[in-house]
């Protein structure tokens, strides 16, 4: 049975979709967002071993040249993550979809669904398909939090067991997108359209960093597109420096509250039914 790198499972989450959900975070991402607040989820561990001697709880060890993590001993002090120079984390549990589902089942009947996030969880479509099938059979909702780089149109099997996607639209123009993440947004915008038309778009998100990209242009263009899909929420997120890599954090400033409120009013005036500021 194939195993996949699970970074973290949050049993009760109020911020990963509607109601109370278990959130499953997978390790690894192809985007390099300047404002990423959990950069340690971006890469897989290289087994360099730098973090092992520093772990105060002795939750890390080296066996056969590989870093091994004992999650039962971990005290979540983040020393390993602060030590890592590879944008990775040794705190990974390699789990099968069945094992992951067993962890999710512990929260039934307190949760209405599951959200997979990351990193970029669509790196592992086989995992998602199997996990969501188990969830659906148990009557749980299934949402994907994605950067939109995966071609959802080529994976009808996944869409069949997935209620919807929470899609990041980091900026509207290709040039701006490259500034934010070093990656084209062609697929992101294709997914925006594809998912919305199939009623598989739960939410669009944009993180607001004044000056990094054309914020107002992005908010306007996204709003103009999703206004025809009243079930789609637009979540406009305040950039916060917590967890962001220092070399990027020093170049970015959080937006003012007034500015965020103006953006909300703008999106609403264009016709978006539900705009959420966080």
């Amino acid at each position: 049975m194939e195993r996949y790198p699970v970074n973290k499972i949050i049993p009760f989450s109020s911020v990963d979709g509607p109601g109370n959900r278990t959130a499953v975070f997978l390790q690894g991402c192809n985007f390099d967002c300047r404002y990423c607040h959990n950069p340690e989820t971006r890469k897989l561990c290289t087994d360099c071993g730098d973090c092992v001697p520093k772990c105060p709880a002795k939750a890390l060890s080296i066996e056969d040249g590989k870093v091994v993590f004992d999650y039962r001993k971990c005290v979540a002090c983040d020393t390993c993550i602060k030590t890592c120079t590879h944008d990775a984390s040794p705190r990974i549990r390699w789990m099968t979809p069945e094992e992951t589902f067993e962890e999710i089942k512990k929260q039934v009947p307190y949760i209405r669904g599951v959200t997979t996030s990351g990193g970029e969880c669509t790196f592992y479509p086989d995992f998602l398909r199997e996990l969501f099938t188990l969830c659906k059979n148990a009557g749980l909702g299934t949402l994907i939090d994605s950067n939109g780089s995966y071609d959802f149109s080529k994976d009808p099997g996944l869409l069949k067991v997935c209620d919807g996607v929470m899609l990041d639209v980091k900026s509207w123009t290709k040039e701006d997108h490259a500034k934010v993440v070093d990656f084209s947004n062609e697929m992101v915008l294709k997914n925006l359209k594809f998912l919305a038309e199939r009623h598989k778009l739960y939410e669009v998100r944009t993180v607001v960093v004044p000056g990094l990209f054309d914020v107002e242009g992005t908010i306007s263009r996204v709003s103009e597109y999703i206004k025809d899909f009243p079930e789609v929420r637009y979540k406009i997120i305040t950039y916060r420096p917590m967890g962001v890599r220092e070399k990027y954090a020093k170049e970015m400033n959080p937006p003012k509250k007034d500015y965020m409120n103006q953006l909300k009013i703008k999106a609403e005036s264009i016709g978006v039914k539900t705009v959420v500021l966080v």
Partner: protein
Amino acid sequence: MRDISMDRVNSTRDQMLETVKSPTLTHEQKVATMANLADSLLEVLDLPEGLDELLNAPIDKQCICDLSEGHAPLRPRYIIPDYEKFLREGSSFLRLEPAHDLLEAMNNLLIIYKNVPSVTNFPVYVGALDKLLDPYMKDVDDETALKLTKMFLIHMDRTILDSFCHSNIGPEATRAGRIIMKAVAETCDTVPNVTMKYDPDITPDDFAIQGIETTLKSAKPSFANHKMFVNDLGEDYVIASCYNGLKYGGGSYTLVRLILGNIAKRAKNIEDFKKNVLPYVLDIQARYMDARVKFIVEESGFFENNFLAKEGLIHREKFTGMYGLVGLADAVNILMEKEGKKGVRFGHSKEADDLGVEIMDIINDFNNNHEAPYCEATGGHYLLHAQVGIASDIDVTPGTRIPIGEEPDEMIDHLRVLSRFHKYFPAGTGDIFPIDTTVHKNTDYLLDIIKGAFKDGLRYLSFYASDSDVIRITGYLVKKSEIEKLENGENVMQDTTALGMGAKHNGHILERKVR
């Protein structure tokens, strides 16, 4: 009546003089304290042998506690009048006609509240306010109804000077229920406490969500598992005082509690506790309660003479008694230590939780086999009650809760422990969660937790915003700003503020794990 020593008389007289001179007690609080001290000189109850040593012991040894009910109870502890009948028929004693409109209904209710006795001298139950007021709101516009409801609530808060005072709403959504919640959110006072009876098959989600929004502003309503209470007590149950499930038109004669931690201290080991020590104390507490109940019914004359009984607003046959307990967690931890298993702690180990269940099964079986006098309303037995503690408790964990400071990291693990214990307590239990509202802006999140919890066998849940001024102490509500006033030596209106201050210092209630 038995004689008492002159020493005891003199020590009581000293306490009375101290009360008269107290700088922090209000006039009403002094009068109530004086009455309790006078009552403490009476010796009329037919007390079981062995009680004295268990009851009148230092705080770290006391095994049975009667919660200041007095030596010669002159009324049942909790009284639940039939306010619907009162509004429909009026009262000849109070010289009130039936209420014809909203103003008369509110005015009549505010009058009767001042005539409903209880252990606190204030009404512990003020009615299913939505059902009482909804018919009278028919011809009143929203704005006027809200204004009158706010005045009605403010009047209660400033004249019912004790927050062991409870109103109910739900499970059905009503216009009055929505207006009451709006008024509760805007006034943010401590009286009356509010419980929403919640049943996912009856209560619409938007009504429950309004309840959640209201509790994150004003620390109420709490949520009661309607299906579970109906199953245990019948459709005519109410939630009164802290969170006590009782019969409408009845009440509870008495509430006495076991202090399980101190009982465990007397045992050699788990076996000795289960076989000898616990059964011995269970029996004495039950017989002490029997004596109290018999005195109230047979000798006090309450049911013959009080207008509530004479006018059919309460019925002796709907009363019961509450067999209380505190400190299940303390008992389990002490017993585990006696077995040399110091690290095996309640709330964190299946072995410890299993022992908790075994202890509850013993208490439950005992209660179901004890024939309680005058308790025909509840099958001839008392009802178990997970008591929330009192201000002077030190190292006593309320009911079957997990001690503050030891709550499991994950809320799911916390809830799973609680779900094993709520079923034992038809006369009330409950758990409280402060919520970080900067993180959890999603009210559906809490509704999912309530729905899951009630499916999982939990009976009663309370939430408040961790940064709120009004907070739930153990079951009752207090304003943190009022505690501060009292700490600075100023008078405060409500007597429960002093209890809240005690619980803050002795019970660490401000240190609950925020979810």
